[in-house]
């Protein structure tokens, strides 16, 4: 069953005229893994996917699928199948003919291809709709048909371009679970483009965070979440406060830095030269109210906003040279010592919750 292919992207660039959409990225996606390309719009994630699929030419670099260099092969010769953003089902064909399309193109006779297409629709639990046209289906059903059409070619890798963006929030979560289940069941490599952190965290074995045509970080969801590599990743993933200042000293893997016109903080990370610029990330949900026992792991600020979120309460705090600092505390902790907008509160966190962030060029 397992005919999954490793995808190796070797310093691939995509240049449109004078704009660089993808800037010399290198990435290895292990065989049979679920990889999410994550980033804001215009970050180059879709261009990257389309280059893997062969719908976009590679300007510089090579793409290797399994053991074969596929850089110059047409889409259908690569062993990949693509699922398009709006599914791109053929509106004039019924579901069977939609799913059987690639078989028809390769000259499989009518009875065989219709039988195989029906089997594929059965796998997606869509056989009851076989003679319908795509326009008569709901979004979730269309997605299943698009999956069936992509999988009938028996691909080594399935490439999904924002597959869930056309669905309503409830359906999104359901189809997400289906995608994950399908990937486990088939064991092939999935590459999934999305701009939703939540989607990437829920699905991926590897999250590849991209920005401005470059890879900011490629790691497991847990690592990307807990140890964001750059300030961009920390901000984009949310759940971290990013503060920047100048290094004043370092010792024992603890870097001390000072904010312009603000407090002094320390965070764990590699030793840096004094005077250099540095960014640090602090987990919003690990911040607690109370005086810090250690200097540099807390500050006192004024609450500028309080948002009730049910299980948690989100506090926005200003102070120590930080314009907006977010602390998410449990409802229990909040109601034990209630605070109000305008109050000055002391905050603190543990040493391992503050980490020094790297930059791309270093």
């Amino acid at each position: 069953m397992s005919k999954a292919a490793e995808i190796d992207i070797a310093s691939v660039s995509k240049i449109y005229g004078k704009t660089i959409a993808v800037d010399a990225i290198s990435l290895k996606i292990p065989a049979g893994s679920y990889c999410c390309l994550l980033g804001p719009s215009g970050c180059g994630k879709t261009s990257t996917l389309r280059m893997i699929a062969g719908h976009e030419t590679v300007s510089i670099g090579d793409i290797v699928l399994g053991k074969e260099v596929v850089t110059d092969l047409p889409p259908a010769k690569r062993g990949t199948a693509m699922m398009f953003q709006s599914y791109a089902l053929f509106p004039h064909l019924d579901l069977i003919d939609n799913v059987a399309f690639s078989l028809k193109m390769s000259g499989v006779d009518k009875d065989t291809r219709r039988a195989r297409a029906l089997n594929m629709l059965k796998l997606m639990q869509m056989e009851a709709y076989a003679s319908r046209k795509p326009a008569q289906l709901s979004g979730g059903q269309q997605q299943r048909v698009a999956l069936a059409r992509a999988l009938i070619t028996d691909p080594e890798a399935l490439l999904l371009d924002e597959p869930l963006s056309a669905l309503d929030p409830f359906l999104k979560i359901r189809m997400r679970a289906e995608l994950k289940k399908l990937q486990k069941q088939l064991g092939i490599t999935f590459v999934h483009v999305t701009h939703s952190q939540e989607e990437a965290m829920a699905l991926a074995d590897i999250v590849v965070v991209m920005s401005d045509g470059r890879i900011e970080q490629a790691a497991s969801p847990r690592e990307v979440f807990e140890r964001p590599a750059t300030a961009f990743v920390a901000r984009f993933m949310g759940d971290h406060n990013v503060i920047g200042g100048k290094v004043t000293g370092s010792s024992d893997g603890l870097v001390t830095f000072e904010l312009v016109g603000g407090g002094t903080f320390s965070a764990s990370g590699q030793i840096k030269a004094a005077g250099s610029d540095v960014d640090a990330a602090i987990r919003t949900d690990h911040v607690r109210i109370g005086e810090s026992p250690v200097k540099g792991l807390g500050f006192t600020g004024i609450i500028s906003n309080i948002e009730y979120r049910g299980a948690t309460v989100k506090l926005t705090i200003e102070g120590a040279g930080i314009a907006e600092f977010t602390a998410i505390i449990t409802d229990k902790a909040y109601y034990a010592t209630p605070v109000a907008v305008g109050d000055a509160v002391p905050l603190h966190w543990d040493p391992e919750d503050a980490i020094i962030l790297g930059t791309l060029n270093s």
Partner: protein
Amino acid sequence: MNNFLSRATPYIQATSLLLILGFFLAIPILLLLVVSFWDYDFVGMYPGFLTFNYAETLGSWVTWKTYGNTLKFAALVWAITAFIGFWVAYFLAFHVRSATTQMILFLVCTVPFLTSNIIRMISWIPVLGRNGLINSGLVGAGIVDQPVEWLLYSDFAVVLAMVHLYTLFMVTPIFNTMMRIDKSLVEAARDAGARDWQVIWNVILPLAKPGVAIGSIFVVTLVMADFSTVQVMSGGQSASVALMMRNQMSLLQYPAAAANAIVLLALVLFMVAGILRIVDIRKEL
């Protein structure tokens, strides 16, 4: 009173269109129908109810031959304009990348239409004539000894001029439909391993059908009603139904021409109905 006014409003709003359609479409056709049953001689028309005009029209082998000839023109012109129209539209819609170039090239297609039909038709004469451009070129190059006679004043010339006049009516609706085809469908087809001709045959052609149908309606109705092109380009050697009607009118045989017109109208409506039966154009409207 107010209640009456609010109920009458939609009818009042519809009145203007009703009047226009009534005066310029329904009443003329009704008059045509009435006149087609009248009697006539070389001095005037006499109200009555005779089926003689129809009997004469449908009973004459000349009529049948003329209808046959007109249908032949319609079929040839339709086939050629559909072929050219499809490929021009396909090129514009799928091979021209930028929207600006697309619009410029499309406008270039319409440039000949800045002059009148007659001028465009007549300008073929110096090209195709006995001593025209093509013939003098061919004779001068020694390819033929005698000028080619069938270039002008022939069915060939009629079809050529009609194709020239009517191709744009085919290009425009097909281009319009093709522009609405989602480009990701073409990519999806390529992803499924379709070659260029398979993409055209399996995806673009079926989805462009409504455009082809609308273009076909334009071209067929225009060719079926054409008399000037046939007269000028055939040099009077070929006939069409509309030309036959014109001759009848110049002989003051209005009721006969009316009967002929009603028969032609019925035939064209029948053809349009046929096209609409094959292709569902509702999606386009």
